[in-house]
């Protein structure tokens, strides 16, 4: 068992306070940097997608997991980011178009957030869903800009003299953005803004009673969340190299919810687990299809049905998600051989929002 002896308040603020944290994360960093060398090309492409979904997941987690504002329409921000960068890059370089995509998504996030301010629970979910339909309609019909259903081809990213013409090169960019997004999320969570967001999730009246301006903080949460998801969308556009409205449907919003719920709501780490899950799952389904009876394998809604079943299963049986399972595994080893089935239950007396 490990006992931590804290000698300064600074300890609680550090991202990697313990030497062993620094060791394991250092190892992870080396593995991530070497991935393009170690992984076969197909898996590298998948890794890029995992990174993109993780960034979008961080965005949604900030809003839904931390501020408690559930959003069924995050595909809209993903789409805004993708289309903004695709359209702007006809006339300006990536280094300008990329942040612009984030800003544009943030602006749309505020627009979506304004009517959502008074809503909560299922009404909020439906409100965000409706906003997302509005955004996709606008994208589909504003043909002079978005070329409607014909879609837009997206060129490769040019950074100065370097062209990101392979998955390996794109991978490093996505990795950099993912690390930056994770660091941003972590910064917010250890600042007054982050705990204000968590306060809104748990008790709006309580938050008001300590001076938290509900409107301002909720809109900031919407803006930041939309911006991160928008940046993920911009990277996605460059990965796929062709975007059209059909790629940004309700299914994408559901996939993002799967990322945060199955990953573990209340944990930024969880987004990474959730992103891995969401990328692997279709391939598992594809392989499993060969072994399923015909009438099941040929159902068009099979993928959605599997997502839904997994989501419900996790919410019922493993509400802390894959991150929760990961924590159980770590606890098993740190408590060995004293681990019992309910050891994790005690762990819950440590705040969920703190186990990042």
């Amino acid at each position: 068992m490990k006992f931590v002896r804290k000698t300064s308040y600074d300890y609680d603020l550090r991202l990697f306070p313990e030497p062993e944290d620094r060791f394991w994360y250092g190892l992870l960093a080396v593995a991530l940097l070497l991935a393009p060398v170690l992984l076969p090309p197909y898996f590298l492409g998948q890794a890029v997608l995992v990174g993109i979904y993780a960034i979008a997941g961080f965005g949604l987690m900030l809003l839904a997991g931390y501020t408690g504002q559930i959003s069924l329409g995050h595909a809209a921000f993903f789409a805004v980011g993708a289309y903004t960068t695709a359209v702007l890059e006809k006339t300006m370089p990536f280094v300008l178009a990329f942040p612009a995509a984030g800003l544009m998504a943030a602006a749309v996030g505020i627009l979506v957030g304004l009517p959502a301010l008074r809503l909560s629970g299922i009404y909020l979910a439906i409100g965000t869903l409706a906003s997302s339909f509005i955004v996709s309609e606008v994208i589909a019909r504003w043909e002079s800009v978005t070329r409607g259903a014909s879609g837009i081809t997206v060129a490769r990213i040019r950074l100065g003299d370097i062209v990101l013409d392979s998955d390996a090169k794109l991978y490093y960019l996505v990795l950099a953005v993912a690390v930056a997004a994770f660091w941003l999320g972590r910064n917010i969570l250890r600042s007054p803004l982050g705990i204000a967001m968590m306060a809104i999730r748990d008790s709006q009246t309580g938050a008001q009673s300590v001076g938290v301006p509900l409107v301002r903080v909720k809109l900031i949460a919407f803006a930041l969340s939309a911006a991160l998801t928008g940046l993920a969308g911009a990277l996605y556009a460059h990965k796929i190299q062709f975007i059209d409205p059909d790629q940004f449907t309700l299914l994408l919003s559901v996939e993002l919810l799967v990322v945060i719920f199955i990953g573990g709501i209340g944990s930024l780490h969880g987004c990474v687990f959730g992103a891995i899950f969401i990328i692997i799952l279709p391939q598992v389904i594809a392989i499993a299809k060969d072994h399923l009876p015909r009438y099941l394998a040929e159902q068009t809604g099979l993928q959605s049905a599997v997502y839904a079943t997994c989501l419900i299963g996790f919410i019922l049986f493993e509400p802390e998600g894959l991150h929760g399972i990961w924590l159980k595994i770590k606890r098993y080893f740190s408590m060995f051989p004293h681990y019992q089935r309910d050891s994790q239950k005690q762990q819950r007396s440590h705040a969920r929002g703190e186990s990042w």
Partner: protein
Amino acid sequence: MSLLSADAISLSFGGIRAVDRLSFDVQPGEVFSIIGPNGAGKTSIFNLISRLYPLETGRLSFGGRDLGRLEPHEVASAGIARTFQNIRLFDQASVLTNLMLGRYRHNRASVLAQCLFLPAARRQVLADREKVEQTIDFLKIERYRDKRAGDLSYGVRKIVELGRALVSEPSLLLLDEPSSGLSPEETLGMVFWVEDIRDKLGITVMMIEHDMSLVSSVSSRVLAVNQGSRLALGTAAEVQSDPAVIAAYLGQATPGRGPG
């Protein structure tokens, strides 16, 4: 000059007059208690001060400022802190986080500084942490620091909520039934805390209470209300022997626990 003054304030819910042209004022440094039967409008008075409900008539001013124009969160920024009858803590967060949140109104770090965790944000968080630890010390809740607020017992949650109100360094503290749900020992502890809050921290306290021993021990003045309007206003002894108050609320005037 009074710290808080209420001038003919009213609040109705449909046909029910919760607060009926009530006037009183609270002096700096005193402990001002509000007593009365359930449904008398006591919590509604607090909700009017916190601006959770709008004033129907009259005027509320705090340190000379008109409260009527403020949003609920601005009331906190003005220096008024409160606790709630049914405890509004942040259950998913630790006690430490709950208390840190109490410092929100003192936050000077910009959104950008917080997103990048610039030195300004770091300084802010460390300064808040110092203050929070002082309050943890004062309330003796060190052992609960990292525990999830939702998992704690009722009595401890009440104390944590008191702590959250104290860390904001308010000028006026509104306590809504601080002793309800507490054991007699815990209620005695509350007497000492209210005294310390008044004497050592220099905070003016308004308290809604049913426990008459707590009221008589610490109050400078007591306001008795019934059906939204004033029954009596004076020292604890005066109010407890007022015939109208005895008839409406107290029964025979003996010191000790009141009804409810």
